[in-house]
């Protein structure tokens, strides 16, 4: 097993007949991902692109032994779709959808944790292991097989950095988007553990942003546990303090969350922080 997924990962797509679902399912198939079934209630019995069977429910898709699902349904229906996947016991639940109410995500994440299931997203680009499996919406052509693992809280910015890595002559062992919402399934620490255990991964890139304390916790974890080289980029340095979580947020996250705090934490953990996305490959020695 590579990081979370590999060439044997069988993927279903909840909402495969939707605009986003069908486009990205098609791209995933082009990438080489084993898309074994699509879900579209009421359309069971038809096929996607004349090949992939469409069924009415995740329960019906279980005969294809899926290990992962991509959920691409409208935000109000995401919680139900995720519960359906968790109920069926699918190990990886990736939620493409944006604008999911975070109260729904909280419940999804807690229920998934209870059942030992990994949630990726919502509102993230998914996961790509070059040459093996892509689940999500990252552009197919930016990757090259290599030894740099990337985890990011962002979408397009991730592609920018991945492409810079690829252009520099290096390649990627895995690229994971955590998701841009206030509440998402994965933390940097979750992913760092996987990167650390993956023999193929030699170098690690973390792409963080302002808000929350995910980066600060990751920095402390790296200092204590990670021997592989880690490089970071933090976006939002120039953002005005404007939107905050009110006073209570400051208490919960103990005054952290600014770009300065995150950069400082990384520097203290021996993690070099790039000023520009394009600088990331230069810092990877």
């Amino acid at each position, binding site marked *: 097993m590579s990081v979370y997924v590999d060439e044997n990962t069988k993927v279903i797509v909840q909402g495969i007949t939707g605009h986003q679902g069908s486009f990205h399912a098609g791209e995933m198939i082009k990438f080489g991902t084993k898309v074994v079934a699509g879900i579209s209630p009421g359309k069971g019995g038809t096929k996607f692109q004349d090949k992939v069977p469409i069924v009415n429910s995740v329960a019906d898709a279980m005969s294809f032994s899926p290990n992962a699902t991509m959920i691409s349904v409208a935000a109000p229906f995401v919680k139900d779709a995720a519960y359906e996947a968790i109920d069926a016991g699918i190990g990886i639940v990736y939620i493409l959808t944006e604008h999911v109410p975070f*109260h729904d995500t909280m*419940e999804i994440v807690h229920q998934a944790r209870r059942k030992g299931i990994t949630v990726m997203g919502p509102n993230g680009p998914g996961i790509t292991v070059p040459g093996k499996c892509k689940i999500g*919406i990252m552009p197919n052509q930016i990757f090259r097989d290599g030894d740099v693992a990337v985890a990011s809280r962002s979408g*397009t910015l991730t*592609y920018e950095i991945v492409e810079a890595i690829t252009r520099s002559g290096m390649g990627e062992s895995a690229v994971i988007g955590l998701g841009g919402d206030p509440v998402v399934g994965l933390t940097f620490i979750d992913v760092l553990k996987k990167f650390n255990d993956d023999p193929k991964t030699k170098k690690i890139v973390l792409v963080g942003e302002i808000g929350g304390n995910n980066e600060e916790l990751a920095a402390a974890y790296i200092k204590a546990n990670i021997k592989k080289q880690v490089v970071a980029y933090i976006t939002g340095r*120039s953002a005005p303090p*404007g939107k905050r979580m*009110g006073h209570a947020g400051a208490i919960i996250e103990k005054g952290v969350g600014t770009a300065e705090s995150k950069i400082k934490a990384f520097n203290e953990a021996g993690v070099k922080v790039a000023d*520009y996305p394009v600088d990331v490959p230069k810092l990877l020695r």
Partner: protein
Amino acid sequence: MNLYEYMGKEIFRKNGIPVPDGYVIESASQLKPFKKPSVVKSQILLGGRGKSGGIKFAKSDADLKAAASELLGSKIRNLTVTKVLIEDMLNIKKELYVSIALSRSDREPVLIASNSGGVEIESVPQNEIFTKKIDPLLGYSDFIGREASAFMKLDPEIGKQFRSLLVNLYNVFVNEDCELVEINPLVITGEGNLIAADAKVIMDSDSFFRHKDIVITDPEKTPLELEAQGKGYAFVELDGKIGVIANGAGLTMATLDALTLHNGKPRNFLDLGGTDNVDIVVEAFDLVLKANPKAILVNIFGGVTKCDTVANGIVAAKNKFSIKKPMVVRLSGVHEEEGRQILKDNGIESYPTMMEAIERVVKVSEVQ
């Protein structure tokens, strides 16, 4: 989305959380006759309103009229007061603090309470603050309130009121899809009642599809931001001079960061999102032009959004709005070559990397 105090209190009232009797006015002519000593509170979204002169007390009808007239239309730290809340003055014996907030790292609500209310909670020593995570699959349970009451050393009668208030506060947090519900101060009155003297409520705007009864215009957005929101763009006005259009929140933010590091000040944040539609690009230019920047930077990493589509959109916008201001475009990724050819054919300069485009736009904006 941050709610005004009076909106939060309306939600509290519906959910059984005691608040002072009161009403909101937008003009002094709406004042009701003076009955009891009152507080006149500017409805603005700022902490420390009192210190900034935004809260006044009225012990007579004349006081009341003076306070309302003075506050309405006044500016407090750059915000214009358009509404004031008139409330019965409380007989304050003690001030507590309580809130329920989302903890992003734990992905669950956290109850925060303190015996020391009425001041900024950040200024209260850690050992005087009670915090407790609440499991979203279980919800609030009374033992949490008992632990909090014991920590705060509330007397039994106040403790009972406090625990009952917590049930309702948690219901507000969940049922109204809140990021934060905060009462500071939560007042113990001389009569022995617990009353929410303030209300800070932040709702998750992604949840509004299930709160269709609530029609709220985000009080913190500018008119242009509201227009952009109505059109489905993530758009924030800033105080610089370089208009920015990019795709993806992270890339857009990184663009602003890079501009700033190059001493270029952005005029706005505009995320095109992941669409592949010429009209979306044209509409984005409309918004950015309304912000009247000195130059415009477009930074696209093509994926779902293809570079040639964006290029066609830029050309269409240039023609439609007769744009004379300097434009610098960076196109990279899917259909990059086609896109750059389209721009070249229309006399618009473009670059393959973000850094080149940043350096160029800063330079051209300086000569404007």
